[in-house]
């Protein structure tokens, strides 16, 4: 009897893990396909004779991508835009979050609701007037046209307010105030060290969103030297209406790996904060 139940236990363990492993494979295979496919030539990828690893590994796709696109400059653009958007959001959203969570001032809750309300209007719906404004400022093909509209987001403010409200003790702030600390000093010396985990999580999300963004940069940026990696992936590998699969995959690999590496470095914190319910704002 005990042997039977032990067998049952073992079988259910195997069953659950096999299902999960198959699902994980489904999540990973496209990523794997991209990474190895960048080292295959067109006739090897587009063939019913499937190879898993490249039969004749080649750097030809990467050579073409690097010769047709200023990849270093483009990578720099991607980092510049994503890092600026992230830093600006983290700073301004945590300041506002502190004020909404811990300070008393007239209209606080109404203003906070108003800020949240702005999340309801999607940026995609105001593309045309935004484009006209940017063109009027002569900002087509500039970094600021991409950075400024997303430099401070209501989501970040909401996220930071929730976190500061629950994790920064009000007594600590009161003590600092009695010691003659001003509000900015409080932010810098007391709040900042406490909210580092929230900064990492929000920072990751903001960085990935800015790095991966497509529609708005596609409208505003039309010189190769101003492109982001995400845009390059959309445009690369196409000549005379013929699509080169390997080149597309090589470009995609270049765009995919930086956020993936950053994610892997911070994955524990990121997953923990999702698990803690930080993203549902509970």
């Amino acid at each position: 009897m005990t042997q039977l139940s032990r067998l049952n236990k073992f079988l259910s363990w195997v069953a659950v893990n096999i299902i999960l492993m198959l699902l994980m494979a489904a999540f990973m295979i496209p990523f794997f396909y991209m990474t190895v496919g960048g080292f295959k030539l067109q006739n090897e990828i587009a063939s019913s004779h499937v190879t898993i690893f490249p039969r004749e590994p080649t750097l030809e796709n990467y050579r073409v991508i690097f010769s047709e696109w200023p990849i270093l400059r483009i990578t720099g653009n991607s980092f510049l835009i994503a890092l600026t958007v992230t830093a600006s959001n983290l700073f301004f959203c945590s300041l506002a979050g502190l004020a909404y969570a811990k300070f008393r001032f007239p209209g606080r809750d109404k203003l906070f609701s108003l800020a949240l309300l702005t999340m309801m209007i999607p940026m995609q719906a105001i593309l045309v007037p935004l484009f006209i404004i940017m063109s009027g400022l002569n900002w087509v093909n500039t970094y600021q046209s991409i950075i400024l509209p997303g430099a401070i987001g209501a989501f970040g403010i909401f996220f930071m307010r929730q976190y500061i409200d629950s994790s920064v003790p009000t007594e600590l702030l009161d003590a600092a105030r009695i010691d003659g600390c001003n509000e900015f000093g409080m932010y810098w010396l007391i709040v900042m060290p406490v909210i580092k985990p929230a900064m990492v999580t929000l920072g990751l999300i903001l960085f990935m969103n800015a790095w991966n963004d497509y529609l708005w940069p596609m409208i505003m940026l039309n010189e190769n030297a101003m492109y982001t990696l995400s845009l390059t992936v959309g445009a690369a590998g196409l000549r005379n209406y013929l699509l080169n699969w390997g080149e597309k995959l090589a470009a995609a690999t270049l765009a995919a790996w930086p956020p993936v590496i950053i994610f892997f470095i911070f994955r524990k914190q990121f997953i923990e904060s999702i698990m803690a319910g930080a993203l549902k704002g509970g």
Partner: protein
Amino acid sequence: MSTRNVSGVIETNEKLIRRDETRLPKLKKWLNKYKISYIFISPFFILYAIFGLYPVFYSVYLSLFQARGRKDWTFVGLDNYRRLLFEDPVFPVTLLNMGKYLLFIVIPMTFFGLVLAVLLNSKQAQRLGGFYRTMLILPYVLAPTVISVIFVQIYDYSFGWVNLLLGAVGLNHIDWLGTEQWSLIGISLVLLWQFVGYNALIALAALTGISPEIYDAARVDGCNVFQEFGLITLPLMRPILLFMAVMTTIGVFNMFAQPWLLTHGGPGYSSNTLIILLYRTAFEIMQFGYAAAIGVTIFILTAIFSFLQITFNRGFSSE
């Protein structure tokens, strides 16, 4: 107040001080007290006024004109809306598509997110839990452009891995992105693939919050696994499932990159989305006024939808 009883001198002093205070402009005093708070929260409002609120009003204004690009504006009143709602054959097709996308994405996303979370929450999955959680999130990190490049290839009719797999198990190849019948489903599957893991983690967070004692009690009462799921897990998970569905719905409404890169909304208009319609109207045929009217229609739809959701939520929580 208590000083009045002690001596008149202090009282007059107080009066003097009070008079002095009133000499200061009231607003300035008020500002001094709350200055820092308003400084902390104002950057968002300033930026939003320029790049959010102003474009919203601009959209409404622009939608009343026939505008070819930035020049040649002619006032036409509400004609753009009349055309959009009653004449444009693409708009109703696109709206219907949005309904289909909601059906094919939101429901499976919430359902499979929950199923995956239940699997991950089981005792059997604990040993490899860290690995599973990391892998689940991987597609979420990838750019829509990257994902589209990959799926265009693995959906390929002759050589795509999906079709080779279908062939291997004896099924017919499917032209996922090239037929009106399949394009919308093909795109929905890509989005499901990309976001189901993320949703599973959110659901898992809520699942781990359910106390195991409830399940123990149910087991004592003779519940089987499915009864446990239906009678305990599902009711307790309803708020979080609603949250997942709402977030996914918002995402679907704003969908552009994946359908654009996979099919350009085609073949025909079979996988068109509202944002693709807006984008093409504005930047391919340069009808800015008409595109602004589409934008305003999207606001109104979003507002109605959010209102319904809030009412639904309220009814739900007071239940």
